[in-house]
């Protein structure tokens, strides 16, 4: 896959950040059910543990465990305004590559459906490293007793999903989000269900007032997340595939 010069921070600002800022409230209304592995990971944490939710979005994972304290962060102010209701946790606006936490602070961290929005391999590895940096370090290298980080990314291999991507497909895709302007009933099939890098503008007006926003995603292929974790200086403790996503629990080496 060719890396365009345009990819990087500016590219993500246009094709990721500004989109979430616009679709925040509609996006949030569709994101309420926690994924089972994330839920299990959060419930396993001991009472009083301190965690970070990097790219917390609307804060749906902040509702899972009230006996831990989580600092949720997201780049979208509009999503953070929604996320902030979850007690006893706390939310801030921050970039996942410039997190305002002292290194080695947290007992655990999660970063769910976030790292696939970074548009170059180096930035994705940096994002994994940023999550590993804020969890507690091991007592000595290789002991694996440091803090644990759960990372989730969208999988390339999802031929049974409605997107239908699979092995061999282009991994860098633009995924539409249709923001309905009117309540009138629409056909089930969503509009603009095709990806085409750089073909369509960030948003376009539909005749009936619907707006389609395109978000950039890097679809992870099997083994790629584990590889990124290794390059970021982490050790994979557990990993797997769940509902169109690759996930891994990692700890600093």
């Amino acid at each position: 896959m060719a890396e365009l010069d345009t990819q990087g921070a500016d590219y993500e600002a246009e094709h990721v950040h500004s989109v979430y800022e616009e679709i925040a409230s509609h996006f949030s209304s569709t994101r309420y059910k926690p994924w089972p592995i994330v839920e299990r990971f959060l419930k396993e944490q001991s009472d009083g543990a301190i965690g970070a939710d990097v790219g917390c979005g609307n804060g749906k994972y902040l509702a899972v465990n009230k006996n831990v304290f989580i600092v949720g962060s997201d780049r979208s102010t509009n999503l953070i305004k929604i996320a902030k209701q979850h007690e006893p946790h706390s939310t801030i606006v921050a970039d996942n590559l410039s997190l305002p936490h002292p290194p080695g602070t947290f007992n655990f961290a999660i970063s769910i459906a976030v790292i696939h929005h970074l548009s170059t391999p180096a930035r994705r590895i940096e994002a994994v490293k940023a999550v590993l940096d804020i969890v507690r370090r091991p007592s000595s290298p290789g002991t694996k007793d440091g803090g644990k980080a759960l990372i989730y990314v969208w999988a390339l291999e999802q031929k049974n999903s409605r997107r239908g991507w699979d092995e061999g497909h282009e991994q860098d895709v633009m995924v539409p989000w249709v923001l309905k302007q009117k309540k009138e009933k629409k056909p089930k099939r969503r509009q603009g269900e095709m990806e085409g890098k750089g073909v369509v503008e960030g948003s376009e007006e539909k005749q009936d007032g619907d707006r389609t926003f395109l978000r950039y995603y890097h679809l992870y292929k099997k083994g790629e997340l584990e590889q990124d974790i290794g390059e970021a200086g982490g050790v994979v403790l557990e990993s797997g595939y769940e509902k169109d996503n690759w996930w891994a629990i990692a700890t600093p080496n």
Partner: protein
Amino acid sequence: MKLLTLNFLTCAIKTCKTNPASFPLHPRNAELEIQEADINLPFLKNILPRLMWEEIRTIARELGLPDLPSTPPTPTDLSISTSSTAPSNPDTSLDTDEPSEAPAGEETPSQTALDLHRLLLETCIQEGILVCGSCGHEYAVKEGVANFLLPGHLV
């Protein structure tokens, strides 16, 4: 933003993180608001060992809040033992149908616990800035949300 959050925040600029002066961030021109929340005594006891007490004292002082004791409370300081204040009542053994209102092990928060809860989980910075003691960068807090996005040249 709850004051407890400041215990886990520093400057977002990478080069500041190795400088001890970047922690904690210093609140300035802060508008505080009390947002009441239910007290969770086990939670409070469990986070106690994670508190950077000296830094929390500094923050409280900078916000003009009452002085905190020089040493942090211990878990036992946070509860009033119920076993001594509520001696066993022979009648309770008869009321087997009634669920016990205070199950064994339930503890009453002490004044110290209430104070700590108020300070860390109910006292919120609504407006103001957080200043890095290392580089002087100011992070705005608006409507209770601190913003750590950096201008391009500082990333």
